[in-house]
């Protein structure tokens, strides 16, 4: 089964539990601007949800955009950035069609994105309306 998220933006209530859970999982604290998922409010229109689509992303342009081959797709479908190889050139940030790769500013200059929490994304467990549903993975 392809790996990724079933996203229904119509069901998103903009509660941001997904961002809170993401930052808590990745950083040990709630810090929404550093989450690997973003929900952009566009009232009265439905929000925009920015997160890596994994196998649903046609061509996965971030991988090819990286001049140092720091981004790769593994056998399970996880698209991951190798921090040790990343030079912080921002090519992937520009290439991502979903606006779902960000730059870490403090203590280095690396790109970061959703890593699907290795198979069971913390964000999905917090989504009570089913706007964000896991496909594939553990």
């Amino acid at each position, binding site marked *: 089964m392809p790996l990724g998220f079933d996203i229904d933006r*119509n069901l998103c*209530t*903009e*509660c*941001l*539990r997904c961002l*809170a*859970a993401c*930052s*808590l999982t990745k*950083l*040990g*604290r*709630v*810090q*929404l*601007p*550093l989450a690997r998922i973003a929900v952009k409010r566009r*009232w*009265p229109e*439905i929000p925009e949800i920015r997160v890596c689509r994994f196998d649903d992303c046609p061509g996965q342009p971030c991988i090819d955009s990286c001049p140092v081959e720091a981004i790769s797709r593994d056998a399970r479908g996880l698209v991951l950035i190798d921090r040790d190889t990343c030079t912080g050139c921002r090519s992937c940030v520009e290439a991502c069609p979903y606006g779902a790769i960000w730059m870490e500013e403090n203590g280095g200059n690396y790109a970061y994105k959703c890593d699907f929490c290795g198979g069971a994304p913390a964000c999905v467990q*917090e989504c*009570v*309306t089913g706007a964000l549903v896991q496909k594939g993975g553990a």
Partner: protein
Amino acid sequence: MGRSSMKDLLVRIDLGNRRAEPWAVPEQLKGYLGGMGYGTKILVDEVPPQTDPLSPENKLILTVGPLTGTMAPMQPQSCIVTKSPLTGTILNCYAGGFLGAEIRFAGLDGLILEGVAPEWTLLLVEDDRVSFHSAEAVLGKSTAETEAYLREIFGPDVHTLSIGRAGEKAVAMASIFSETRTFGRGGAGAVLGSKRVKAIAVRGSRGVEVARPDEFSALVRGNMELLKAACAEEYNLVGMFSRVGTGAGMGLVNGRGALATRNHAFGSFDGSTRIDGYAYADKFYTRAIACYGCPVHCGMLHKFTRADGSSSWLRGPEYETMYSLGSDLLNGDPVVLAEANQICEEYGMDTLSSGVCVAWALEMGESGVLEEPGLELKFGEPAAILGLLRKIGEREGIGDLLARGPKQAAKASGGDLGRFMQIKNSGFAAWMPRRMKGTGLAFATSNRGACHKRAPIGAEITGQIDMDAYEGKAALVREIQDRVNAIFTLVSCRFHEFVTPPEVYPRFVAAATGRDISLKEFLAVGERIWNLERLFNIGAGLGRADDRLPERCYQPIKGEASEGAVVDRDEFERMLDEYYHLRGWDEQGNPTQGKLEQLGIPEYARLGLR
């Protein structure tokens, strides 16, 4: 072991000198936990009870609590404490949305606004830095326009609060809006306006930790399971809120003959099914909008087409507004109700007190006591309802009278104050003391006037207890007041407690802050705050005579559903006596020295001295 969710830091903003200083939370304040506890203690310590609410000496304190910004569900709110220009009492009011979390992300437990700005000002709070900006471009603008402007100049990621024209013009029931959520009651908008602050934008970059992460996560998981189960239940009130919003309960209230209608003359409204939560969900495009971190998402965004063909959006109306701008005005038109709500939002006014003023003006109009050129003052008349609301916001004609609040409006116009549904000058929330005696006592004894937040509404309206009985209500009201005050130190959403057992709160506090506290101690914090508020109000000149219901409550309700239901004066006074006794107060409602010593606040007896 992580770090406490509380940052032990507020920012004191001296508006007159355009200076902001970080203020470390003193040790003795920490026992008040946060939120309403912090706000109340700071206000009673720093603002004398006789202070003119609209003078530079009044302060406005905006706080959050130990669970704000964490993963704990239903904790989005922030709390404002100030002296109210409407009631002359200490005031606490609350708004949900995202502002509370953003204050916490800024690394703060709150802001203290002092003095008066030399010119109309916008405040930008970025972490603990505060900058002062001109508000000239948005003077006279609506709350929505003002907040859009803040996002334009400060960036799309700020969270905001603002006042509209009503706050600028010191309308006594002006509210402070925060992205369609409202610090509704008691005229906090007029206080902010008196300080010449049009709006505040907050952006935080900091993270939020908790003292005991594993314990905290387990509590969050448990609480989320409870809430999800409640949301899945067909007849759970919180579940109904999550499906159609707070207007879900109107049918139940109407069926019990307790839906205040036509300025509280009647207890049921035959138009209720046209304006309740189900009607809005059924007839209009609806999208659920949550506050920060909330799985219940009771906010409903609706799209309307007005009579003139134009379309508009509104998040709401909420249940209380369906009463105050609906049934109480005999207004069964959902689009007119939405427009009335929008006018309150545009001007920045409390839908409850504004609606109550309109209801009274319509009744006085029909009795020939009041008139206004160009408006036919008649219940159910859309032009009168919308026109009066605009006139209050503009302080025009009769609206200028009503903008001063019930007592002054009645006095200046010669209208009947006994039919003005107010207590301590604050308009009634959506409940009828004649049908719900405990709720009546809660309204009468509330420290902020006719307030529904600390009343046995659920137990009475669902029939869990006899709604018409007086017996046992004094003890129940006292217990709810203390418990809800304690919960408001966390600034939990009022609906959180509908599902969450009381013992969970001290556990949450301990896991978030590392401060162990028993349920008994937690509830004692609530009681301590209640007594501080009472002392402040006594010092401000209030007493037993202000703990009474308006005259209409002693006259029978009309109409079939609850024909004849009434408050008996002697029974009510006995209930009040019992309530004072249970509180450890004297027969005039003054806290005794013994009670204050028991609560560990004997030094505050001075507050009550006039």
